[in-house]
């Protein structure tokens, strides 16, 4: 998840407009548990990303979202049995333990709502990150008077996600060149992670020191941030705010109805 150079409406928007869009999506997603409304909200975020040419990047997260949804479903089945029983996690025919952990309509509904909520939020956040250069995000956070330590933490977090991916790939290549076999079975797979994880952690820690020093030396605590590029809001932002307004209006109308 990192900025990609591309021409599209999201890339042309002022970073503050995009940040407001993300905040609005997060608030709207949190304020309702209605799966239909959450599905519409997710669909609208995806549609907006598609118009901006970012749909393919967002859809890359689908495997992760499926894992997240499955985990949430198991969690809600275990802790929130409510409503009509649709089946059992352990089939009733299984001796002794059969019939425990009922899958209820309430648990499924809650899991679905939470999954859609996360999907809408992740899609919106990803659209922001891949269409906005990190320095512009830093500028906006400064503008909003976010304390510099939090801004820099956010910057480092953004930097570390792709960096870890890259380092992981490089380490994986180095081990594959030694005929590395990721292992079989749950224990084997976990043990098989050692040749990847150990260098990944050690190397990342050593890079973190240099990264922190570089941020300091480039004057990120100077408080004199002025963007080199012109970041004045334009027509795209007016359209963006109109869309955000329509989204809020539609949402409130559906709530009233």
């Amino acid at each position: 998840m990192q900025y990609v150079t591309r021409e599209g409406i999201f890339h042309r928007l002022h970073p503050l407009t995009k940040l407001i869009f993300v905040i609005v999506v997060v608030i709207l997603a949190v304020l309702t548990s209605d799966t239909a409304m959450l599905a519409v909200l997710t669909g609208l975020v995806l549609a907006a990303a598609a118009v901006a040419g970012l749909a393919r990047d967002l859809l890359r997260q689908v495997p992760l979202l499926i894992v997240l949804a499955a985990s949430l479903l198991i969690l809600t089945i275990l802790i929130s049995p409510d409503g009509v029983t649709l089946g059992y996690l352990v089939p009733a025919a299984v001796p002794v333990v059969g019939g425990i952990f009922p899958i209820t309509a309430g648990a499924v509904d809650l899991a679905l709502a939470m999954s859609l909520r996360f999907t809408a939020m992740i899609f919106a956040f990803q659209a922001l990150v891949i269409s906005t250069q990190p320095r512009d995000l830093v500028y906006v956070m400064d503008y909003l008077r976010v304390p510099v330590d939090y801004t820099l933490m956010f910057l480092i977090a953004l930097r570390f996600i792709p960096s870890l991916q890259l380092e992981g790939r490089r380490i994986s290549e180095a081990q594959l060149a030694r005929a590395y076999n990721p292992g079989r079975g749950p224990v084997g797979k976990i043990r098989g992670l050692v040749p990847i994880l150990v260098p990944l952690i050690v190397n990342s820690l050593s890079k973190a020191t240099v990264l922190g020093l570089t941020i300091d030396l480039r004057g990120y605590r100077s408080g004199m941030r002025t963007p080199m590029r012109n970041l004045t809001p334009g027509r795209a932002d007016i359209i963006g705010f109109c869309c955000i307004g329509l989204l809020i209006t539609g949402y409130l109308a559906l709530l009233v109805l």
Partner: protein
Amino acid sequence: MAPEAVLSLKGVSYTYPGSEFPALSQIDLNIRRGEIVLVTGPAGAGKTTLCLAASGILYHDYGGTLKGSIAILGKDIRDYPGMAGIGREVGVVFDDAEAQLIFSTVEEEVASGLENLGLSRDEMYRRFHTVMEATGISDLADRAPHTLSGGQKQRVAIAATLALGTGILILDEPTAELDAAATATITDLLLRLSEEGVTVLIVEQKLNDLARIAGRTILIEGGAVVKKRITKTVLGRPGDSFRPPVPSQESVTTPIISIRGLTHHYEGVAALKGVDLEITSGEIVAIIGENGSGKTTLIKHLNGLLRPTEGSVLVDGLDATSAPTAELARHVGLVFQNPDTMLFAETVGDEVAFGLENIDPGRLCAEKVDAALQEVGLLHRKAVYPRALSRGERQRLAVACVIAMKPRVIALDEPTTGLDAQESAEIMETLGRLRRDGHTIIMVSHDMHLVEDCADRIVEMKDGRIVPGKRTPEEGPCPRSCSMSPGRASFTASTRSPN
């Protein structure tokens, strides 16, 4: 302190936290405005520690025990409000270029420091374009830093620091990964800056270009200055002793690698554009070229880490476009540029055993581990934690990990980066012995002197293609720029008989 000194170290000693021995001992150094001081010495001599001390990083960020005084522009480093304050006067380029690249495009990276100086937009643009042109990275402005080659990353890191416009520059091995052309560009740039009054402290093992511009060259060993105003001959350079033994005539006639029309696209960038190359068994082939010319991409095709977009790759009778990497690893050993990408085991012996276990599970042969360690001169370090080894020893361990698996082809990506002359010589001697034992060696390097000394054949790459023509090491050193045009250079894809 001399009145004109802008960077001054007086009786500086430093011991890292948790260490019993000082990394620096009684260093005295005064650097005048506009002076270029080059510090060199063997691996582990304390060169990087000296950079960290002079820039105030040891005091403000590392802890440990610092004795003596360090002054920047006449003001003690203890009186500066942390590294953010020192950063206004001193620009630092660390030896790990990649760790200094924070942003998502090169343009953003170089502009990032400029945007924190309170400059007008016009002044920012002026400085930005000047630095981009001076460091030769204007064409990389829209590229993501993580997609660049090692040398390109290093140039971006230098540019981002130069853009800050500080009066003092401290550079830790700034040209270690640069090709000859880029090294010359950076060297000339530093000379120009010094003429404008910028003070430069450089730590480097590659003396040839930098010694030309340095006002003083200082040799340090064991954390102490052992010689001031040294000449190149004090350190020597890895040279004639590298010439490996001649393989038998029979061994140089069998093709072991055959590449035809190899094209590879990576994230929309054509990294290889129709490469044809044949390598015969028993050769030492050096692949050279400017940073980003496709050298590493090419050798990753030999063991299936990358698959071609188009073209064919045959290695030791296997189709490397489809054979599993685990199978190809038995035939081609690839030693990566940074040995730290692979070291994970508790001991040196376990590290070497890892690959053997992978290709022959449950039938680990301790003699093979010992033989590989013996080959690289690390048998006495068998029980040591791998990351406690020096950089040169870790590089040799990486070679041992690969040769223990007995591949017929051994490919090495920049095997001497970050190594001193002695360590480079040891690596080259090891490669010579491996060739004598029947291995084919492919070596990616931007160090023209190194490849002239040890390779049978030199293949130059440029913009994802092999430069046509022919060249053998006997034809003498390449032009300093190393931009050997087809008409001027004589490169070959044919084998010469080593003499």
